[in-house]
């Protein structure tokens, strides 16, 4: 397949994943802000915007953090190149670029996602309508994923698609964890406080992990470190860093097998996977969760760059 097409597939799935995770984070923020009100709600929105890395663009436009303004900015503001609508558009453009590599089912799912969300996001979203919009974003992303699973041949194209998904998901999970931890738990002394429990609850919500968390509680680990362990190291949880890397590693091995040789991304992957599997949650807390996450995000980026380089995405 063409390098350009591999690039388009990879990014199509990155953008879709990012759009979905952005919607999840927004949903969690909305819940938190609702239960808190006033300045605390503003703080919550600041934290959401910060997690998404949109703070500079947001502050250039707005003086304070409020629910309606933050939601509009995240979902559909043309001044925000990272808004959900822009990501869905990017995903669709990449799908058009790789139209000859995806099935009609996948193309139509992406195209319908774009049409549906374009319709929902032409005007500012009213608060009463927000949960419907967020539901639609998740649903459309699920449709594309389902079409991909159900109709695509398990060849190089599929593996580039999955690689894009898991590179992005790992990055997003790490960022969500980092900002929440970084902002709200400057020292281990706060672990176990009431505020802390609320914040972890919002992380679980953002990662659709509440059900998984109940399972973990059954296993007798209801504290912050138990939750962190679930989200970072539990290979059974599909948004955990460990799960993302198990899958990504399989995709990259499959790509190496198809191309008849291992390359730079495979060795970086192996290194990162080994590191992750040899780390315990206590090691992470001892060393500092923030430091761990910063390292992770940067090595994740290095893997993504190596994939682009190894498979001639742009040159």
């Amino acid at each position, binding site marked *: *397949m*063409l*390098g*350009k*097409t*591999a690039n388009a597939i990879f990014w199509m799935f990155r953008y879709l994943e990012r759009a979905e995770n952005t919607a999840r984070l927004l949903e969690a923020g909305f819940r938190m802000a609702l239960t808190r009100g006033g300045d605390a709600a503003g703080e919550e929105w600041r934290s959401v915007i910060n997690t998404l890395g949109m703070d500079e663009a947001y502050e250039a436009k707005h003086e304070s953090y409020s629910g309606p303004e933050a939601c509009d900015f995240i979902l559909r503001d043309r001044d925000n190149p990272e808004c959900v609508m822009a990501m869905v558009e990017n995903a669709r*453009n990449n799908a*058009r*670029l790789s*139209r*000859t590599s995806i099935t*009609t089912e996948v*193309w*139509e799912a992406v*195209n*319908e996602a774009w*049409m549906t969300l374009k319709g929902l996001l032409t005007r500012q979203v009213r608060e009463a309508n927000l949960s419907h919009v967020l539901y639609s974003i998740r649903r459309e992303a699920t449709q594309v994923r389902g079409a991909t699973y159900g109709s695509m041949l398990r060849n*190089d194209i599929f593996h580039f698609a999955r690689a894009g998904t898991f590179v992005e998901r790992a990055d997003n999970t790490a960022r969500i964890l980092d900002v929440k931890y970084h902002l709200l738990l400057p020292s281990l002394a706060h672990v176990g406080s009431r505020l802390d429990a609320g914040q972890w609850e919002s992380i679980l919500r953002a990662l659709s992990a509440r059900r998984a968390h109940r399972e973990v509680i059954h296993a007798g680990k209801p504290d912050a470190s138990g939750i962190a362990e679930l989200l970072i190291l539990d290979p059974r949880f599909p948004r955990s860093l460990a799960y993302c890397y198990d899958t990504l590693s399989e995709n990259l091995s499959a790509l190496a097998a198809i*191309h*008849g040789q291992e390359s730079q991304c495979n060795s970086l992957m192996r290194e990162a996977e080994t590191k992750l599997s040899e780390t315990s949650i206590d090691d992470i807390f001892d060393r500092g969760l923030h430091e761990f996450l910063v390292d992770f995000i940067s090595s994740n980026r290095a893997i993504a760059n190596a994939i682009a380089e190894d*498979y*001639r995405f742009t*040159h």
Partner: protein
Amino acid sequence: MSKKAESNFDEMYYADGSVRPAYSQYQDWFEKQDPSDMRLKDKEAEGLFRRAGITFNVYGDTAAEERLIPFDMVPRIISGNEWRKLSRGIEQRVRALNAFIHDLYHRQEIVRSGRFPERLLRQNEAWLPQMVGFTPPGHVYTHIVGIDLVRTGPDEFMVLEDNARTPSGVSYMLENRETMIAMFPDLFAGINVQKVSDYPARLARSLAACAPPATTGKPVIAVLTPGIYNSAYFEHAFLADQMGAELVEGADLRVVEGRVQMRTTAGFKPIDVLYRRVDDEYLDPLTFNPDSVLGVPGIFDVYLAGGITIANAPGTGIADDKAIYSFMPDIVEFYTGEKPLLPNVPTWRCAEPDSLAYVLDNLEELVVKEVHGSGGYGMLIGPTASKKDIKAFAKKLRAKPENYIAQPTLALSTCPVFTKAGLAPRHVDLRPYVLVSPNGIDLTPGGLTRVALKKGSLVVNSSQGGGTKDTWVLDD
């Protein structure tokens, strides 16, 4: 029915209102349909096109809106007999076109014989001196041709235009049929319509048969597109997808070891046949427009050395110029030794003083077209133009007469379209798609029917309010 429409040939109904044989089964079916269901179907069709993303971009539209070409769900039906006759005429014409282009770039026998003026070559921007003396692989110049036909009576089909560069619209021929089958499966169970769905396979076969000498193994085909912002990008992707070919842009290609190669995830791979949807001018910045970023530096040298087939061949545009069109009856006769089976529309070349005088005297009855124009732009339709428009046009015409040809305003045939008030006649034309390879000329039964959706309008171009119809050739 308006008075004007009554004087036209209607393809579905006789003048007395009874139905013509080709449409009788359709008519029976249509009468059994509930009108409100049909109105719903009309909406459904639009949804199907939107979902499939069969849209085109409008140049210069900053909002980057994607538009649909309106689809009319009443099929345009041609009997097997009519089609067989048409096919012979089309094949003859396409054979002549290829021989003509070959001759122009070689001995120019037609010029020597005095039947074709040399000045038309010298003045023509589509003429490529770089092609002189070169013969493309398989001796094929026009791998894909679209012949635009109009009809004025039961047996009167005429050629309005030859599209020998990169005829577009074939994806609509295919998608219109898919849409019809999805919406009205029962219709196809009862009526034997010849299939068009194998066009991409035929195209792939035809292109592969024109592979260059450098090919080793099964020919590798790629479609070259200017990119996703091109108005016909959907079609480029569609054809590549259906053929199982790669869809490439200039930036994916590079000349390596005397071959044009595409950058794949496993390194550079040679391409044998390039179905390009990029104009000659942009093909190779080293040979043509140096500012082009859409092409491949050095591809033309590879081409001349037998390393790649470019379809259609560079320089074929010489044959679809409107001034040259007027010579087609002579051209057909010169190369085939036969009388043309399909006539031209009578055409006045304004470059000739007698013709110019006639055209100027009769502007209000004529259609005047720019020689190099396309898409229905820059033309005058005398009968519907205002006095002021005619005066302004006459001035342009006098200033540069060689830029124009004129034709009578034809009584174009009509075919019914579906409207809220029921069936209503509208003017149509037809573009069949013809494939040329050393194995012969291959004509897919059907084509693109364009329809002027505005009552009384003669302009079928999609850029000016035209729509399309599924075109049936009956298997009878």
